[in-house]
Each structure stands twice: as C-alpha cells, then as structure tokens.
C-alpha cells in the first residue's frame, strides 16, 4: 500500500448527497484513497483525480468513466479478494464502503503499462470480424490454440475458484402496479396509483430516489424538484400499500408480467449481520408494469473520443450535483443540444469557465441564454476532430464545421482535462422491448419509443420519449391513476402539480464528427465492445445489411452493456451510409438481463444440500448409526452398503448378498412408490393399465404387473394387491413413483372419466421392510407367532394383515431378490420400531442389513429387470416379459406391440453374460461386438445394462440387451468398453442365471 492521495476534485458547495463527516478508506490497484459516505467507487476515484480505470476489450486502450450509473460501459472492475472476489462490476454502481478493494481488469502487468496495448498499435490488423476471419483455419487449431488465446487476450475479470461465501435470497412478490424508476414520472405514477388504493412496488436502481430531480433545477408546486421528490417518497412511505425499494434493478421482463429485480441489500454496509443476505432476487408478478426508466445520454463519435476524462455531460453534472465531485477543472463541453448547458452552469457555480462547442448554428434555449449572460463564449458550428493525452485527456483538436458539416474548415489545439459530451437522449426502452413491445421511431427525438404493447406494460416520461418535466408528471399521474383504477375502482384521482423548467431548443441530427484532414483516428461508437465508425463502415462494405448481422459482425451493442449508449449511434451511422432513415434500418433485440447479475443471486439459497430437498426413510437414523454408505435415488437417500471394519465396497456387497442367499437379510424398501386405488371400477382400470389380466385376482392376493406407454415401451413394473372389494395397493419403482401417479391421473381424468376410481400417493404413509432369505420364514414366524406363515398359510404373492405391539402390520409374500422373502409394511411412524424388532429377533438367524448394491446383485443374478433394462426403449418381448402380455384383452400401448418393428425376431433382447476368464468384471455400458479386431465402425450387437459379482457362482455376471439374443445363447462375443480401453471375451448365457425356474420364491 502506498500513501493516500488527497481528495481535491470536490465542488465548492456541499449541496449533494455526500456526508463529508464520514470519511471512507478504500484501495484501488493497491493504492489507498479516501472518499465519503454517499460516494460511489466512481465518484470517489474521480474526486481523487483518477480517471484511468481499465483497458478496453479489444485494443487495450486506456479507458475512464463515460457515465455515472448503469449506462457505464468502461469502468468494470474486479471487486474484493479471495472467495469474495467478483469480476466485471460496474464501478459507477458500487457504493463506497470502508476497506473496499478494487482493481482494474483486462490489463497486464498494470493499467498504466499494459502489454496488450500493442493491439492498439496494430489496430489495422484487428478490424471488425477479425476473429471470424483469422481463426477459421485450420480447424484443428481452434480448441488448442485460438480459443485459449482469444480468451486470454479478451481478459475481462477473473471468476473466483472458491465457493461464494455470501448469502443470497429469493423473494416472490405480487402487486397491482410495479413502477420501475423513481424519476418524476415514476414518483408521479407511484403516488397516483398508491393514493387510489392499489398495491404498489416502486423500484429504484440507485441509492437515492428521485432520478433527474436530484440533478435538474426545476420547480414543482412550490418546491424544488429535489424537495418534491423527498416529499413524495415520504408520502409513499407512509402508505401501507406501498413497497419502496432502492438499490433495486428490475433487469428482466418475462411472460405474463413476471419481472425479476435484483436488490443490493448489504453490499453498501460495512459490517452486515451474517443473516443479512448480500443480495436478494425478487420475482415480481405485477398486474401492470409502469416503465419509468428515464433516458440515457448519447455520446458523440469523434477522433479518439475514448480517452480517460471524456464523459457524458449528464454524468459530469451528476458527479457535481449528487456526489460533489469535479470531473475536471479545465473542461470542454461538446454538444448538439441544449441540455449540456446545465452542465456548463454547474461548472460556473464552481468558478470554472468551460469551453463550449455546439455543432448547431445557434440556439436560443433558456439555458443557452443564461450561459451567454454569464459571459461565456459559445463556439457554435464547431466540433472536436481529435484528442491527445495517453492515460488521460490533455488537449483537443477543435475546429469550425463547413456548411454541410462534413469537413472542418480550420483546426486548433486547446488544452483541457475533461470533455463533457452530449448527443441528446435515448429513452431507456429495454424493459418494454423485453416485454414484447414493438418499438416505433420518434423523429422529434430521433429515437425509438415503446408503441404496440404485447403485455400489460406502459412507458411514461422520458422512457416514453416525453422529455419535458410537464409531460412526464402529467403522464405519470394519469397512467398511475388509470392503471390502479383497473384494480381498485376507487376513482381517487391525484392532481398534477404545476411545474417550471427551462425551455429547450431542438437538438441537431449530428452524432459523428468528420475526420481531421489526412488523419484517421478511431471514432468510437460502442466503448464496451471497442467498435468504431470504421468497423461499421467495413461491415457494410463487406455486404452485411441486416442490422442484426452488423451487430454480430462488429459486436456493436452486445454483451453486458446491451448497447445502452451505443445502440442508436450505431443505427444512425448505418442509416447514414445506407441513405435510409433509421426506422427502415430497424433495431436489434434487447435481451435480459438489463445489467449484469451475480450468479450467486440467481442461484439463491439453492446451494449444497439445499439444491434439492432430501427424502429420508423413517429408518434413516438407524442406517446412519450402523455405518451405512448412502446413495441418492432421486431425492431419496438410500443405504448403498454397510461396510464392516476394513471392508471395501465389493467385500461388503458380496457379504450382504451372500447372507441373503444363505441366511436372511433385511432391506429398507420404504422408498418404493405406493399408490392407494379405490373405487368400484378399480379392477377394470387396472386391467387397462397393466399388460396382464387383473379381473380375476382374488381379494388378499398380490400380482406382479407391467405397464406400458402408448408407444408400447415398458413404463414401469411392480406388484399390486387386492386388499378388499374396491380397494387396491399398488407399488411402483422408486424412480417412477411420481410419473406413474400422473399417468394414472391422466387416464382417469382425461381419457376414461367414466371410470369410478380414485388414486392417491401413500408412499410417505407406509414404511416397507424386505426380509429375504431361506431363514426369513422362521424369523417372521417367531416374530408373529399368531399367524400361519407356512407355504400353504401364506403362499407366494399372498398377503396377511396382523398386529404387533398394537401396531397394524401388513405382510406381503413378495420377492425381488429371488429368495423366499416377505415385505412387512407398517405406518411410517412405526417403521423404525418394526425394523429394530426384526433385527432383534433376527440375531438368532444371522440377519444382516443389505443396501441397494446387494439388492442389485441379487436381482441381476436372477435376471429380474429394473431401470437399466426398462430404459424407455424396450417392449415386453425385449426384456423377457412377453409372458406378462395378455393376448385376450386390450390395454394401454397394446396396439403398438403388433407394429412390424416391435415384432421383428432380431430385436435386441435380454441375455446374460459371463466373462470367459470368470474374473474380469464387465463395465456397465460396454458394447457387445462379434469381432473386436475389425476396423471401425464395428457393428454393434447391443450393450451391457447391469453388472454384478455373482455370489452364487463367485464370478462376474452381467445382463445385456443384444440383437437376436435368444439365438446367441452359448456363443462367445466381446464386451468392449472404449472408455476403459478394454475388450473382454464373454459367453452368452440365459439372463436367469440363478434359480431359473423360480423354485426358491415359492418354497
């Protein structure tokens, strides 16, 4: 850190919004400075005489501040350090806070001396479309050489690599009327709407309400503009139906009047509480939106018009009037209209006499007269040809224009330390345009204004092209009343106060100065994207006609800036060359966001564990206490395996699976989807939904069922039980639970409303516990001594209701593992109790819990299909479920099954695979080929869907879906995984590897 410099560029009078009693220290590029409370980073730097803030995007030219707010295209900085570091922040939008650290971007090694500036010397090699032309060939160079080079050269800020430590929140709001912008028309609209009883939100981007009333010398009623603004805000604050938000930018306008606003909640606070979010994103669904976003001043293109110290006249004025900061002490004011004279008057208040250049032949506007009366010599019919000063403006080459204003008649050089330019005003129509408003060209102001609206949106004031205070207030009060009355019908109208403001004469239609003779300095149009007049000329010379093409070829008006200061000047220039009027050229599309938005704010609180909700079974804590390793199954957390001591996953899974085959295992199957089905037509409905017959299922029995989509593909499978007359209990896979419910609701509500059936999800209401293995019957018989669990008492696919410890329990005899198995269902609240009870009694039978991995092993060995096989591309025939398809009845998707493609014999069907060496595991996803030695493309027979280590045979086993599978059994093929660069010789076997006749489940 070097010594703090003095803060000498301040105005004489303290009539702005700076608190000089509170000094604030900050650092920029390693130097410490001070400013005051109320400063922005921009005003604080300028008050210290600093204009050089960064380097331009393409040519690395030294750049300073052009604007004072959201329109700023140059002053993007990297803020803070470490994990709080944030790139591409607009310095004019950053409020000064103690200890703030900022640094320049896009420069190396420093902003004063930047290697990339060589691009500027070579600028004739960097014309429009340079990247397109140069980096096209050879193609192979693109990824490795060109792209990294362009990215590095493009510079910009650096995104931090650590997680963002700050807290961001989302908020949903509803209101009758949203007013965007708190200038005169915005305040008027908000007041009129609020007094008429509407629910109003007023959003202001800056730290203070008032907009142009904070800088313009006007009178409203018997108050100054500033006083009226304060008074109106005080009135609004006192109303319960109004939400006032400053530091809040409405940056996006989406369908059905959904707008999105970013609020900077604590960026300006020195020590915010840890519970205060840094920023808050508001989704506002507004009945009506009033766009009172004002207007942005246009720059003028002249030679080297981008040097630090050259800025908009309105910005210079706001720095003086609001931030008490002088942008220079030897100013030139360069204008084509009257408004810049108010900037001249501000300088005069500080005893500084500016040089004034006006392109017009004369003006009798009131401000012009006032300046004249103060004895200032105004050079009409004059302009700037070129400027000098490397890191800051030092002098300007100025001269008189000829009659057609196409050449300078004489040139002279004068010293200056700033140039305040004004090319007139552009209504800020971005939000209206985002809302789908078809803009129209207003020739009076030479700019686009909102016209035919597509949504409930109304522009007022300067955003609507109404540049006088009188008009702005009148529109604001009228529109605010009209729109609010749609909601309230109160008919309480607020009178528009009288106002006084200076009268202005018309601007001149001139935004580009001629070149000085014999020289070709760059005349910039778009400062952020480094687009000069010559680039637009080149694009048109090369045949680009559509303004959208010119935009993309030159990058004019792109990126974060969205052409706030450049758009119209670019259009104007294209229309000049093309000899068309601007409306014929048209305009490009404005896109959200209007200003850059921090990614953290868009993400909000949905980070880490909050990214998605977590579903836990009632037995979850037991799994945790017993060392379970969890896996996400959709939103559910399921135990994957329970390692003991030094076991790795394979050891644990093999132990768990083998224990099911030899003793008994217990598995938490609470996550399976469960749907309660009731109604007299329930059997008929199930008969239509499932491929197999359901009408003759007896009460007290479960049945395995398969459902299809209408295109014939298997959708889901599971068991459904008939509990009592008109009452069924359906189970679905964990993954498809929600989709199956929607599917059933669709058919009941849309397709067959005549069926008297109701469906309801009961997944959360039941806890399911699978008890599987040869000793399961013995175990449960001990636990439930009063019920007959013999093969006759409770046969395969039977169910029985009972009670234990006063708890209702339903025992199904169903099996996914292929072993003798039961599933005990109790109300969720008693799931843990039941589980512990089974574990207790099970000790004597060597019970062990098993997770999803062992569950997979058991079902793969048995050749039971699951999600990996039922991937939406399989008809029942493909996955060995043909036996489940009824020939007699019709059902959802049946007609598709008779389509030629689905009946062809050589379809890919399910088989088993065993590696010839009986050792190498086959990666899931491997391709199956007949010959792994032929040149690619190798004809592919199919793929491996599921793999496991068979605990029954102690060797790897996989399920695969291969072409003409049935006739490939016994053949040797290859499983090839190009990802792992392996090829494994395999033998094709039946997918029913263990217990092919299903004797165990029926034992």
């Amino acid at each position, binding site marked *: 850190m070097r010594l703090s410099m003095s803060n000498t560029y301040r105005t004489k009078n303290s009539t702005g919004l700076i608190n000089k009693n509170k000094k604030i220290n900050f650092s920029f590029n390693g130097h410490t400075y001070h400013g005051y409370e109320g400063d922005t980073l921009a005003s604080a730097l300028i008050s210290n005489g600093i204009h050089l803030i960064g380097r331009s995007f393409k040519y690395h030219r030294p750049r300073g501040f052009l604007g004072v707010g959201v329109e700023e295209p140059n002053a993007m900085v990297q803020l803070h350090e470490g994990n709080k570091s944030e790139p591409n922040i607009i310095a004019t939008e950053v409020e000064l806070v103690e200890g703030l650290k900022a640094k320049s971007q896009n420069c190396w090694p420093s902003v004063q001396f930047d290697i990339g500036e060589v691009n500027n010397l070579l600028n004739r090699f960097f014309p429009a479309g340079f990247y397109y032309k140069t980096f096209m060939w050879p193609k192979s160079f693109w990824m490795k050489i060109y792209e990294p080079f362009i990215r590095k050269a493009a510079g910009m800020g650096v995104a931090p690599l650590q997680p963002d430590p700050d807290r961001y929140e989302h908020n949903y709001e509803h209101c009758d009327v949203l007013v965007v912008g708190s200038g005169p028309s915005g305040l008027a609209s908000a007041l009129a709407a609020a007094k008429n009883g509407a629910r109003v939100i007023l959003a202001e981007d800056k730290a203070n309400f008032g907009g142009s009333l904070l800088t313009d010398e006007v009178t409203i009623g018997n108050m100054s503009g500033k006083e009226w603004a304060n008074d109106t805000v005080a009135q609004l604050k006192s109303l319960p139906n109004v939400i006032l938000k400053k530091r809040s930018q409405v940056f996006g306008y*989406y*369908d*059905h*009047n*959904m707008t999105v606003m970013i609020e900077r909640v604590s960026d300006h606070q020195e020590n915010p509480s840890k519970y205060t979010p840094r920023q808050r994103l508001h*989704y506002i*669904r507004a009945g009506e939106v009033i766009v009172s976003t004002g207007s942005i001043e246009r720059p003028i293109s002249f030679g080297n018009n981008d040097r630090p110290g050259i800025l908009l006249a309105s910005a210079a004025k706001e720095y003086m009037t609001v931030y008490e900061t002088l942008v220079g002490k030897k100013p030139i004011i360069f204008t084509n209209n009257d408004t810049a004279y108010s900037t001249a008057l501000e300088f005069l208040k500080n005893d500084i006499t500016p040089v004034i250049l006006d392109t017009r032949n004369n003006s009798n506007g009131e401000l012009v007269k006032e300046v004249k009366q103060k004895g200032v010599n105004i050079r009409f019919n004059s302009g700037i040809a070129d400027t000098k000063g490397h890191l800051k403006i030092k002098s300007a080459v100025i001269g008189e224009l000829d009659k057609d204003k196409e050449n300078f008649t004489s040139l002279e050089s004068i010293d200056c330390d700033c140039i305040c330019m004004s090319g007139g005003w552009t209504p800020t129509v971005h939000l209206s345009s985002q809302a*789908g408003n078809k803009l129209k060209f207003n020739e009076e102001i030479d700019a686009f204004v909102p016209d035919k609206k*597509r949504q409930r949106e109304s522009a007022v004031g300067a955003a609507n092209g109404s540049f006088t205070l009188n008009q702005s207030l009148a529109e604001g009060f009228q529109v605010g009343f009209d729109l609010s009355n749609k909601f309230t019908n109160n008919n309480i109208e607020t009178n528009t106060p009288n106002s006084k403001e200076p009268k202005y004469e018309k601007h001149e239609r001139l935004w580009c100065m001629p070149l000085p003779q014999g020289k070709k300095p760059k005349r910039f149009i778009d400062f952020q994207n480094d687009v000069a007049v010559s680039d637009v000329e080149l694009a048109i010379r090369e045949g680009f006609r559509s303004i959208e093409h010119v935009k993309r070829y030159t990058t004019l008006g792109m990126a974060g800036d969205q052409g706030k200061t450049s758009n119209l000047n670019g259009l104007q220039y294209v229309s000049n060359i093309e000899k068309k009027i601007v409306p014929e050229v048209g305009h490009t599309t404005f896109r959200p966001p209007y200003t850059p938005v921090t990614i953290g704010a868009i993400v909000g609180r949905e980070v880490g564990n909050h990214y998605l909700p977590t579903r836990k079974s009632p037995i979850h804590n037991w799994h945790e206490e017993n060392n379970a390793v969890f896996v996400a199954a959709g939103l559910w957390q399921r135990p994957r395996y329970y390692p003991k001591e030094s076991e790795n996953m394979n050891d644990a899974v093999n132990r768990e699976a083998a224990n099911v085959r030899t003793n008994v295992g217990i598995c938490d199957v609470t996550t399976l989807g469960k749907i309660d089905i009731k109604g007299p037509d329930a059997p008929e409905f199930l008969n*239509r939904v499932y491929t197999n017959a359901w009408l003759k299922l007896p009460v007290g029995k479960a049945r395995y069922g398969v459902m299809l989509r*209408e*295109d014939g593909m298997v959708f889901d499978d599971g068991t459904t039980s008939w509990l009592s007359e008109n009452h069924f209990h359906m189970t679905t896979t964990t993954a498809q639970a*929600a989709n199956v*419910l*929607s599917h059933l*609701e*669709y058919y009941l*509500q*849309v*397709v067959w*409303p005549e069926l008297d059936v109701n469906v309801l999800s009961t997944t959360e209401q039941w806890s399911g516990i699978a008890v599987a293995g040869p000793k399961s019957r013995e175990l449960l018989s001990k636990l439930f001594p009063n019920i007959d669990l013999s093969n006759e008492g409770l046969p395969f696919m039977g169910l029985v209701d009972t009670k234990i410890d006063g708890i209702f329990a339903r025992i199904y005899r169903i099996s996914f593992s292929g072993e003798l198995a039961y599933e005990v269902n109790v109300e969720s609240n008693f799931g843990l109790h039941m589980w512990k009870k089974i574990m207790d009694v099970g000790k004597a039978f060597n019970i062990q819990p098993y997770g999803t991995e062992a569950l997979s092993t058991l079902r793969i060995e048995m050749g039971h299909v699951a999600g990996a096989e039922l991937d939406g591309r399989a008809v029942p025939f493909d996955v060995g479920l043909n036996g489940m398809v009824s020939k007699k*009845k*019709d*059902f959802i998707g049946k*007609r*598709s099954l008779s*389509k030629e493609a689905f009946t062809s014999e050589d379809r890919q069907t399910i088989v088993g695979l065993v590696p010839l060496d009986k050792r190498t595991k086959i990666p899931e996803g491997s391709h199956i080929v007949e010959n792994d030695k032929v040149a690619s493309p190798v004809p592919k027979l199919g793929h491996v869907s599921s793999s496991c280590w068979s605990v029954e045979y102690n060797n790897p086993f996989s399920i695969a879906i291969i072409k003409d599978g049935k006739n490939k059994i016994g053949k040797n093929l290859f499983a090839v995984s190009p990802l792992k660069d392996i090829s494994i010789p395999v033998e094709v076997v039946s997918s029913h590897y263990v217990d092919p006749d299903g004797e165990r489940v029926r034992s």
Partner: protein
Amino acid sequence: MLEIKCPYCGKRSQNEFSYGGDATVKRPTLGKEISTEDWDNFVYFRDNPRGKHTELWHHVSGCRQWFKASRDTATHEIFDTCKMNEAFNE
C-alpha cells in the same frame, strides 16, 4: 414464467404445473380395431400450430387435476382454462 389459472385453485405460477400436450387428441376406443396409420397418428403425430392451441395442463404441485387451457403458442397469452368436462367461455 407463465401464470396459469387452475380451474380448481385459481392463478398459480407455471412451476406448479406440467404440460400435457394437445387436448383435442382422442385416445382410440379400447378393444376396437384400428389401422396402423390411425394408431400412429394418435401416438406420434401432433400439429404444431402458431397461435391458438387447446392443450392439457396438470396441476402437479397443487390439486393434481388435469385441465384444458387455450393458449397462443406465439405470445403465450392464455385465453381461458376450464375443467375437463367443461367448454371454454368463448
């Protein structure tokens, strides 16, 4: 994000709903013979009009009712919504 009026619950944000496609498609009657062409038209082919479209929405994060909406596919304007057994007020 659209704002959709569920005929049972009132206006809600789009993220509570899921889209269900063309509401004018009739599922062929069960058990009736149907040509492959007609079946394919039902399963695979849908019009993709620019402008007014009668479509199904499902209030999944709400009352779980399917209902009909008349929406402009170009502007997203929703002219009306109604229950499955009702007609639009047009």
